């Protein structure tokens, strides 16, 4: 993952890219690149930047990018040829806007589904767009002829005017456009929005549960990718002086995908490398070796091999190699690689021996009298099975409530309804006086109710620090904010919150180790930390002690006691000793209904409870 960096070092990536772009015209022709090919590489590289944001970062595999490539290209070309617009840059800009709008409309349809269905819808959309271009709209698009005569831009610098046509002047123009696009993408990736994209790809369920409007972010990614595609499409028309109908074909989308994967997903510069490889091999294999159509076979095989073995493509593989070399050169045992170089938001602040837990969310309005949580007649049935039946449950502010019950009692289902992950069949839930019964998990989290999961729902590709940051970002920024260019370090209080949460769950030492490298107990603590970072006023903990060793249990119980100060907490667990030690009151569920409620002592003595667990007691 690309780290956010500050200062001169932070711009190393951009610097190297700029250098490569400047040097390329002197070096590449020696191995057979001609200006025209290099220009095409730039156009497709730019097309791919947007796609990489969409797929490499946000994880959305779309086969329909050609629709936006073509839309942007043809709108720009139409304005510049048939409508007589003289400013090429303005034409391109309008093309970008048109493509973004198309992206928004298509996204609203396509993103209603995920994974494979999403991919299939994008295929269909691409075909529909191609058809529209070819037939009904052919008066505007020139049908299968395309739109010829697209002019190159002219720049007036006062003292001189430069008209860009083909060849090297076009290269300079395109290189500048590419660089701007790339630098912008880098900013987006480093911004909170970029971080959230990555989280969504990793674990969309949890991203929603910590308070992000996942659908809105996906749509944003889709629109951004469409805008890049539209820009690249417009540039293609300018490059060739002709806008071809093939821009809309499924083939173009497929070519983009293959180039990006070959070059490297999630690297932003991968598509440029992939396009260079693709176009170079096409010319080289076809021309010099006279292989005819088999260049595509060679590329297809390379593609399959890369998907198999080198999922991160050429650039990804190279950067992994470099990282590997760096880390083995570093002294072993050092906890946090790259800790000092990172931006302040990720850096470890000075240690505080008794960190205060992040405060519970400030409700803003004066505290409402009455229970913080009021559940009435809550039921959930699945077909014939009643998972929860008419549960009446209320919670006072500041309480620490335990919930126990034999397996199959409906405890987890109950929690899921509270967080609005599932909708109840009947009944109502009121949180802080507000009816939250059919809201979504994101809204509820933003209101201050969140949960730590029984089975870890972590962002496994990120580090603990990054995990907590994701949650904290939702807490700081609300469920959706369009801060594409913001540096996370500029968000007030963010680093403080992340740091203190990490300290609270004792993960400061391990904050920069990828989750996959953590021990189970550490992962459980991170799980709790995630829920905590959303600053909930009501915190639900689903079996926080599951799978822990006795020593870990003791530590975790201490942790749970400390975090329950100043907030309301409900804990489900099977470890009754721990639960009775921590809770003020305990609720017992059985077969979807509440059996009994009371203090731990009362519950311990209750015969019905013993019977429920042991199936009868021999007196």
């Amino acid at each position, binding site marked *: 993952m690309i780290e956010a960096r500050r200062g001169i070092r932070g711009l190393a990536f951009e610097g190297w890219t700029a250098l490569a772009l400047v040097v390329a015209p002197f070096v590449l022709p020696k191995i057979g690149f*001609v*200006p*025209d090919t290099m220009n095409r590489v730039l156009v497709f590289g730019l097309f791919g930047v947007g796609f990489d944001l969409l797929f490499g970062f946000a994880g959305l595999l779309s086969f329909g990018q050609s629709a936006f490539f073509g839309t942007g290209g043809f709108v720009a070309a139409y304005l510049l040829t048939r409508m007589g617009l003289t400013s090429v840059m303005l034409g391109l800009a309008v093309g970008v806007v048109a493509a973004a709008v198309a992206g928004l409309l298509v996204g609203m349809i396509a993103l209603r589904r995920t994974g494979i269905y999403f991919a299939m819808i994008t295929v269909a959309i691409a075909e529909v767009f191609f058809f529209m271009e*070819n*037939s009904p709209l052919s008066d505007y698009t020139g*049908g*299968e*002829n*395309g739109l*010829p*005569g697209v002019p190159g831009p002219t720049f007036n610098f006062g003292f001189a005017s430069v008209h860009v046509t083909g*060849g090297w002047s076009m290269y300079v123009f395109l290189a500048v456009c590419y660089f701007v696009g790339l630098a912008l993408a880098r900013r987006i990736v480093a911004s909170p929005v970029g971080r959230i994209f990555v989280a969504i790809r990793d674990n969309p369920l949890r991203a929603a549960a910590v308070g992000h409007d996942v659908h809105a972010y996906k749509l944003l990614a889709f629109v951004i990718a469409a805008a890049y595609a539209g820009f690249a499409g417009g540039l293609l028309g300018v490059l*060739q*002086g*002709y806008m*071809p*109908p*093939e*821009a809309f074909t499924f083939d173009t989308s497929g070519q983009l995908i293959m180039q990006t994967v070959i070059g490297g997903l999630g690297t932003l510069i991968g598509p440029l490398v992939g396009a260079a490889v693709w176009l170079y091999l096409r*010319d080289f294999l*076809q*021309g010099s070796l006279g292989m*005819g*159509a088999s260049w595509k076979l060679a590329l297809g095989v390379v593609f399959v091999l890369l998907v198999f073995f080198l999922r991160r493509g050429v650039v990804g593989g190279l950067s992994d190699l470099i990282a590997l070399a760096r880390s083995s050169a570093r002294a072993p045992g050092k906890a946090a690689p790259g800790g000092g170089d990172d931006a302040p938001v990720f850096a470890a602040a000075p240690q505080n021996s008794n960190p205060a837990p992040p405060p519970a969310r400030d409700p803003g309005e004066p505290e409402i009298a009455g229970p913080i949580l009021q559940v009435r007649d809550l039921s959930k049935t699945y077909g014939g099975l009643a998972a929860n039946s008419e549960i009446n449950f209320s919670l006072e502010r500041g309480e620490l409530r335990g919930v126990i019950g034999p397996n199959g009692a409906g405890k987890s289902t109950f929690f899921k309804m509270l967080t609005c992950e599932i909708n109840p069949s009947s009944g109502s839930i009121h949180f802080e006086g507000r009816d939250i019964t059919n809201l979504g998990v994101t809204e509820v989290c933003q209101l201050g109710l969140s949960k730590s999961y029984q089975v870890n729902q972590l962002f496994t590709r990120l580090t603990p620090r990054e995990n907590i940051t994701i949650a904290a970002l939702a807490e700081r920024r609300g469920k959706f904010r369009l801060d594409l260019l913001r540096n996370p370090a500029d968000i007030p209080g963010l680093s403080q919150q992340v740091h203190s949460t990490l300290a609270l769950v004792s993960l400061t030492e391990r904050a920069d180790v990828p989750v996959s490298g953590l021990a189970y107990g550490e992962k459980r603590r991170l799980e709790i930390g995630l829920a905590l970072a959303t600053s909930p006023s009501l915190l639900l903990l689903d079996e926080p002690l599951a799978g822990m060793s006795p020593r870990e249990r003791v530590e975790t119980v201490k942790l749970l006691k400390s975090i329950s100060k100043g907030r309301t907490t409900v804990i489900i667990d099977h470890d009754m000793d721990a639960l009775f030690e921590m809770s003020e009151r305990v609720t017992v569920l059985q077969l979807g209904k509440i059996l009994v409620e009371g203090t731990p002592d009362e519950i311990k003595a209750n015969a019905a409870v013993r019977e429920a667990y042991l199936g009868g007691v021999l007196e």
Partner: protein
Amino acid sequence: MAIGKFGARDAGPVSRRTLLRAGAGLAGGALLPSGLILPALAEDQPALGTWPDGSSGSSVFVGISVPRTGTYAAAGEDLIKGYELAIEHLNAGSEIMTKISPNIKKGVLGKEVKYGIADSEAKPNTAVQNLTKFISDNKAVMVTGSVSSAEAVADNKTADREKVIYLVGISGSNDTTGKDCVRYSFRECFYGQTAAKAIMPVLIKNLGKNKKVAYLTPDYTYGHTVQKSMEEFGNEGGWTKATDQVSPLGTTDFSSYLLNVANSGADVVVNINFGRDAVLSIKQAKQFGILDKMTLVVPYNTPFLAKEVGADTMQGVFAATDYWWTLEDTNPIAKMFNDAFRAKYQYSPEWSANLAYAQIAMWADALERAKSFYPPDVIKAYEAGAKVQSTVGEVFFRGADHQLVRPVVIERGKKPADMKTPEDFYDIVEVVPGEGLMQSPTEFGCKLGSYT
């Protein structure tokens, strides 16, 4: 004919260039090959397109871009054969070339012609890329080839932008020398309007007036322009359109369209599809019994159609075409061409090969008359409208739209029993002369651009 150190320039009219060149040659260029003299005497013209770079050596490069894959691949391969034969003959100074025009010598202006071939897949974008590569990499002095009009139009625009001469291959759309015409492109073959105007009177004469027509049209410019032309000329004989079934390029299953045709009540089915689409649609039309009820007309014949579809299906079918090999009975150049082609490729040439050959020959002729590779000079030589002999008689280019004025051949499929050889598919019904046939140059909106 021996080429002296100073080339064939001795033969032409004396120009300032010639004098200067001769002078330089005398002055000390005795050891220099003729080609190198040209750039040393920098003309008053700035460089244009690939001139003078592309013609400064002892050879020049011609870029050929045709479909080798896809629906039109067969015609593309045939074009290649025509080009290759022509370039071979040109470099060898063959007699056929001289018969076409006495101006043609060995090579072009003393230079050998080299060439390269690229697959355009019948896609405009790929064609444009091919041309651009030929021009920037190989410094091609001329580019040529197309089977679909979409390619041809895209190639037109590219050639005009790059200032390199482009010779159209197959392109049936009226617009290629109509609203999409460019100063730098020249078309030899026939097209929708000429085909329709030539074939319609023959049809009316043979089949009668007031017929209902079902059209099978491929969904792009070529298809629509031919369909419009056919309808327009058909009106004069009271022919009306019963239905127009428009199919996308590359359709393999025409059943839906053919069922609509079968139920349309038409007397005649006009199949405008080209290439493999034509082969499939006709084969399937036979399967759906349409050819038993209706007469088939192919207003723009596809090369090898009869061979692929079979004489049995093609009997009685009216077609308009650019060239058919039995013209050799009346045209000696056709006979020479056919013989040479058969010797090399073991079958009689179709009109695509003939087209390619003719374009190369006429280009060589124009170059010799221009005495230079400077594009505006060559263009002006074309526009002068000099007459050349060809396999279809005397032809010449029109200056106003760069279309070759030439006849259209109307043929009719023979009964299998009447075929004298396995290739003898058609009777030539009429050879309609071009001059009365072709519309006025501006009728399709041609506005040629500038020379430079």
